[in-house]
């Protein structure tokens, strides 16, 4: 593996870390007070810094360092995570992402962006946030960072818990260097409170204290107040905490180093000085108590101690069974730390490192093991599986055609092959399926930037981010989503003042939702803004000559005008939208993905844009039908039901329209062969089959075809890539007999049936 490959992996990892960072910050912003979230955020920045250092990416290291320092202050409760600080941190996360991208692409980032943030971050870390970044902020700082007065973390959050060491001289301790005695030895107080996670991950307080004893002389006070009664005790809980006076010739760093691998799972505070009275009280409290400073003989602890000679076991001795661990093979991770003291220091560090990694894996619930695979390889595999499916269909066909006497062995084998192929295909598709989360996360940044530019206050709420969809769909989703989000903030949401005047929350809410619905992924972008100003849309459309001034349009039709090419209602062109790049582009990109978009708007309440996209662009379950001797495939997802029309059900309507009575409703009958120009005249409905389809616009149509051949999964081959766009046709596929069959674009056909000509222009401006 050469350096570039390693670097590539680093940048891939950076992307993951950045996503982790952003989602963590957002969680904190939403009120998540779990210290582990802060830790995760800190770790993300820390890892980026570490990797960047290894590659000599100095800009990145420098910025990550400042960021990390501020995060560390939050982690240790020196400063509070106020909304102002989080705003700066989210911006910093964006800049960190930019710096990473710049380092990857070998370009540079505008230094003024980083320098401003560096100053702001610095100011927060020092407890003196810049006025510009925190106007009228509540006191941000819980304690001046230099102040040694500890602000211990409550396990459930980072609200500083009032805590004072009695007789602790706050002022002096805060300002002065550690107390030093004549020998140049310093005294520190270590407060160590493990969480049950610490034990669960195989760490042991005893070992940590023993390591601490190597740093200096200890006086240990065990705080046992949290210990419940024996029958309420969770034997695997963490109830003890420790207050330790350490006298050492080393510095604070050496003490912290002891807890390095456990710091995520415990509260650890190191403060210079010690409340001598407290410690002396404890050591004087009983002559025979072990609290008197005991010079620990480490060598003894490390060795297998000599067991006192055992006397004859009295008859009433009950042998406690060996612990479960001794019977079952103990988990390696749990055993490691206990075995560690016998290892040399370096080996122990390695063991601890490995253990830390294991612990990290354990910390993420059900984090599956993953490998990185080049996307090209997956694509090649998908292509091959596609070919396999076609080949299998061809084989099946030739068996039928050659009439091999209906040998059951061959048929059975074929059936199995078909099933296997299907399974392989599903599995391969699953490889490409990815959660939409990364795209949704990117939207967070876009919202922040636009909110900043427009001076609006916006909260982005995302739901269903773990909804999975094919990677190609995800990749192509970002652009239309970005446009729509921009539009929603720029046009949809009102300014805070206006919202306040309307009695709304000044902060607008943008809701981004993803869900699976009948074999498709549906993405909704909902804002609680003003809704579409239909008057203005109409006026604008008339002005642009899109509609006639006297044209009568329904609300839905007016709303859909915004998808018309070149339509923009923004009164002044801004940086964000306007410029003629608008919803028509969005609509086009979504249609290219085989998707549909619709809009629902309520004046004063907001708008909802709904996109419905196929889960994959590679295969499709379709109904194979014949139309004017041509074989077509109709996507199964569009078909509601199929029916055989009776003469009595068909009603003529105008010169060329026909309706079919389905139960108690009438539905327009669309002759697919006629619409696609396969035949000049309308076919007799009695001779064919009607497919009742539902289009995205909500209306139902009965599509008339000549016959149904069957239902099968087909591999989609792009027409655009191999031939050219054909109106009314979404794509093509290869059938078992090797012939090419066209896949019907149901929406386009339905739209065309409304009386509009079927043309490519129509396809683009179709209102769905």
């Amino acid at each position, binding site marked *: 593996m050469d350096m570039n490959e390693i670097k590539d992996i680093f940048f891939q990892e950076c992307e993951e870390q950045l996503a982790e960072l952003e989602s963590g910050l957002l969680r904190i912003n939403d009120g998540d007070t779990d210290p582990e979230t802060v830790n995760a955020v800190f770790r993300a920045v820390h890892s980026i810094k570490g990797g960047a250092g290894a590659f000599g990416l100095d800009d990145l290291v420098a910025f990550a360092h400042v960021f990390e320092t501020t995060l560390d202050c939050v982690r240790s409760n020196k400063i509070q995570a106020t909304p102002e600080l989080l705003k700066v941190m989210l911006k910093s996360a964006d800049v960190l992402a930019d710096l990473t991208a710049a380092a990857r692409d070998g370009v540079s980032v505008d230094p003024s962006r980083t320098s401003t943030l560096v100053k702001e971050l610095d100011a927060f870390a020092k407890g003196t946030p810049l006025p510009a970044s925190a106007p009228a902020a509540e006191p941000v700082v819980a304690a001046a960072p230099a102040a040694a007065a500890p602000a211990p973390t409550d396990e459930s959050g980072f609200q500083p818990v009032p805590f004072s060491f009695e007789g602790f001289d706050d002022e002096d301790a805060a300002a002065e260097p550690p107390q030093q005695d004549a020998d140049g030895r310093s005294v520190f107080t270590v407060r160590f409170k493990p969480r049950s996670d610490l034990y669960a991950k195989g760490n042991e307080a005893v070992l940590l204290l023993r390591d601490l004893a190597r740093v200096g002389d200890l006086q240990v006070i065990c705080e046992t107040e949290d210990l419940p009664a024996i029958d309420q005790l969770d034997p695997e809980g963490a109830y003890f905490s420790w207050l330790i006076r350490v006298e050492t010739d080393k510095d604070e760093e050496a003490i912290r180093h002891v807890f390095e691998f456990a710091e995520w799972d415990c509260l650890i505070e190191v403060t210079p000085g010690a409340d001598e009275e407290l410690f002396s009280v404890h050591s004087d409290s009983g002559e025979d108590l072990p609290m008197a400073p005991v010079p620990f003989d480490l060598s003894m602890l490390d060795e297998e*101690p000599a067991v006192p000679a055992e006397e004859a076991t009295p008859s009433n001795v*009950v042998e406690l069974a060996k612990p479960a661990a001794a019977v079952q093979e103990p988990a390696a991770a749990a055993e490691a730390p206990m075995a560690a003291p016998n290892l040399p220091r370096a080996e122990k560090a390695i063991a601890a490192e490995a253990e830390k990694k294991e612990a990290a894996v354990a910390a993420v619930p059900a984090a599956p093991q993953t490998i990185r695979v080049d996307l090209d390889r997956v694509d090649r595999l998908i292509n091959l599986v596609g070919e396999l499916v076609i080949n299998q269909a061809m084989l099946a066909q030739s068996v039928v055609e050659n009439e091999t006497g209906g040998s059951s062995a061959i048929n059975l084998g074929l059936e199995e092959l078909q099933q296997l192929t299907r399974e392989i295909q599903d599995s391969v598709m699953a490889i490409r399926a990815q959660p939409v989360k990364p795209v949704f996360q990117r939207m967070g940044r876009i919202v922040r930037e636009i909110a900043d530019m427009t001076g609006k206050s916006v909260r982005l709420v995302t739901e269903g981010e773990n909804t999975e969809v094919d990677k190609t769909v995800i990749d192509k989703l970002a652009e239309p989503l970005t446009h729509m989000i921009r539009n929603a903030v720029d046009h949809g949401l009102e300014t805070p003042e206006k919202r306040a005047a309307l009695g709304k929350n000044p902060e607008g809410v943008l809701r981004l939702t993803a869900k699976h619905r009948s074999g498709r992924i549906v993405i909704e972008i909902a804002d609680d803004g003003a809704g579409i100003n239909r008057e203005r849309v109409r006026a604008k459309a008339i002005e642009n000559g899109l509609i006639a001034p006297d044209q009568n349009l329904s609300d839905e039709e007016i709303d859909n005008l915004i998808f018309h090419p070149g339509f923009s209602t923004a009164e002044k062109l801004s940086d964000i939208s306007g410029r003629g790049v608008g919803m028509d582009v969005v609509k086009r990109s979504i249609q290219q993905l085989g998707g549909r978009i619709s809009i629902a708007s309520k004046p004063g309440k907001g708008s909802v844009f709904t996109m419905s996209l196929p889960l994959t662009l590679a295969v499709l379950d379709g109904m194979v039908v014949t139309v004017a001797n041509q074989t077509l495939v109709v996507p199964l997802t569009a078909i509601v039901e199929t029916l055989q029309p009776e003469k009595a059900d068909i009603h003529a309507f105008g010169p060329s329209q026909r309706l079919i009575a389905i139960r108690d409703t009438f539905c327009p009958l669309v002759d697919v062969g006629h619409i696609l120009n396969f035949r000049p005249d309308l076919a007799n409905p009695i001779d064919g089959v009607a497919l009742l389809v539902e289009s995205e616009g909500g209306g139902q149509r009965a599509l008339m075809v000549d016959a149904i051949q069957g239902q099968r999964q087909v591999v989609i081959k792009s027409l655009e890539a191999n031939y050219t766009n054909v109106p009314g046709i979404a794509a093509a596929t290869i059938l078992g007999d090797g012939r090419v069959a066209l896949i019907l674009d149901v929406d386009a056909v339905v739209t065309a049936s409304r009386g509009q000509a079927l043309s490519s222009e129509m396809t683009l401006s179709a209102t769905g």
Partner: protein
Amino acid sequence: MRPMTAPPKVLKLPDILDLNAASRLHEQVLAHKGEDIDLDATEVTRVGAQCVQVLLAAVLSWRSEDRTLAVRTASESYVKTLQLLGISEEALLPKEMLK
């Protein structure tokens, strides 16, 4: 009713009282609730904080019920570890082991 003359039951603690032993120890100790117990820690070579939590909780619970549960004899390793942990509970520290 406890016969005043009956000697306390002696429970021998296993040699390893690490993280994995805590649950087992908890169960074993609870099983003898209501009895006076002397613990024999002479074979203990390794003891972790969670087992000490169990032992201390047991001592306190027994005491609240006017019973005694105490470690009478112990290995040096056991005593040193408890000292390292800053445990000041007499009942867990056999006097003859302390200087």
